[in-house]
């Protein structure tokens, strides 16, 4: 066990491992690119949907069930299926990652909107605000902490799952995990796993920092799933 940790440390700290087109630096950037793009696309889809459902109060049943369905969808199955349908392209990776992140963001956005005090909403309407003013100036700011929690959760899950890019022969940190498994090289597998975990935690902390900066005067964050 101690030997293994020493080997792992050597693997992680050797300079040659970090440089070059298949070095850790490149793989890290690839992983970051897949994860951020997928999270952004998912947010672009999920945020309007969640806000609209929360604002109108319509379609909540559908949204909750769809997000349950999305959570039940096995990512490995989805990536394999899209791969067999589309051939060698980035589609399987992005479709699977977006499908993973959308339900999380929709559920949390909706939960944030549903938690807004109806009296506050009525007061805003009573003051003659238009629906979009109520949505963007009253409901959205109040729902933001929960929305941010959703984005953080989604981001962490996407980073963790972006390893599947290597499964369909692309890059990212999953490369070390899958190559290591194929070559029976435990140190390489562990190295990849540690790097993914560190990246996920670092991104989560970064988003938590953004959240703290945005809501310095807000009550502590709550959770939804």
């Amino acid at each position, binding site marked *: 066990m101690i030997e293994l940790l020493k080997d792992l440390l050597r693997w992680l700290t050797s300079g040659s491992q970090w440089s070059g087109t298949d070095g850790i630096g490149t793989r890290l950037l690839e992983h970051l690119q897949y994860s951020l793009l997928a999270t952004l696309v998912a947010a672009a889809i999920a945020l309007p949907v969640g806000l609209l459902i929360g604002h109108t109060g319509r379609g909540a049943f559908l949204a909750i069930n769809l997000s349950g369905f999305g*959570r039940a969808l*096995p990512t490995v199955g989805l990536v394999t299926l899209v791969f*067999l349908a589309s051939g060698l392209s980035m589609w399987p990776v992005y479709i699977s990652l977006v499908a993973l992140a959308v339900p999380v963001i929709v559920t949390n956005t909706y939960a944030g909107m549903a938690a807004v005090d109806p009296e506050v909403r009525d007061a805003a309407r009573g003051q003659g605000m238009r629906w979009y003013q109520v949505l963007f100036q009253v409901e959205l700011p109040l729902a933001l902490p929960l929305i941010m929690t959703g984005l953080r959760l989604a981001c962490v899950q996407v980073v963790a799952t972006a*390893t599947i890019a290597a499964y369909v022969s692309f890059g990212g940190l999953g490369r070390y995990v899958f190559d290591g*498994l194929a070559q029976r090289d435990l140190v390489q*597998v562990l190295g990849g796993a540690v790097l993914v*975990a560190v990246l996920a935690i670092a991104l989560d902390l970064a988003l938590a920092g953004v959240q703290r900066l945005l809501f310095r005067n807000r009550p502590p964050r709550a959770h939804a799933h």
Partner: protein
Amino acid sequence: MTVDWGWFPDHQSDLVTLTLDHLSTAVPAVLFGLLIALPLAVIAHRVRALRGLLLGLSNILFTIPSIAIFVLLLPITGLTRTTAITGLTIYTLVVLLRNTVEGLDSVPTKVREASTAMGARPLRTLLTVELPLAFPVIMAGVRVATVMAISLVSVASYIGYGGLGQLFTDGFQRNYPTPVVAGVLLSLLLALVADAVLVTIQWLCTPWLRRRA
């Protein structure tokens, strides 16, 4: 991409075996998760100082990718089902712990004080007042954890204990979509049925909520 529907009846017994295999990894994972989460949640709820630490630690565990958890466990538990179950248990823990703490927090202080005033000791208050009242929130966590565990079992196919996930590897290697479609559909169906079973259990266990409605 064409799906060969005739493949399904031909492989009926294989599909049943894999589905049962899938369940025998997912179900113990949720049960063990619950077994660990309940006492930890009670501690986090009662001892404020440990609350942040416990929730924070479980959040960090959640950031490790599921495939990495399986691989990290390999040196300890080897290529066995134990590795698959342990990995999934770690994953369910986050949701279960968070929901159980939230459930216990949602019990009004007055109710707890009334129980104490009637002479109930802390353990009795916990078992007969707090846990039953927190039950709906805890069950919400169990439902999410179960659906998550069922969808994640497939990842364990890399170490050979993936249940229906075996069909994904098979279809991928042979460039044949039919088993992959079968695996995705059965996995979804399994999650749906498991969720329905849990909703029924919750309905049966909370008669007081029914009467009110």
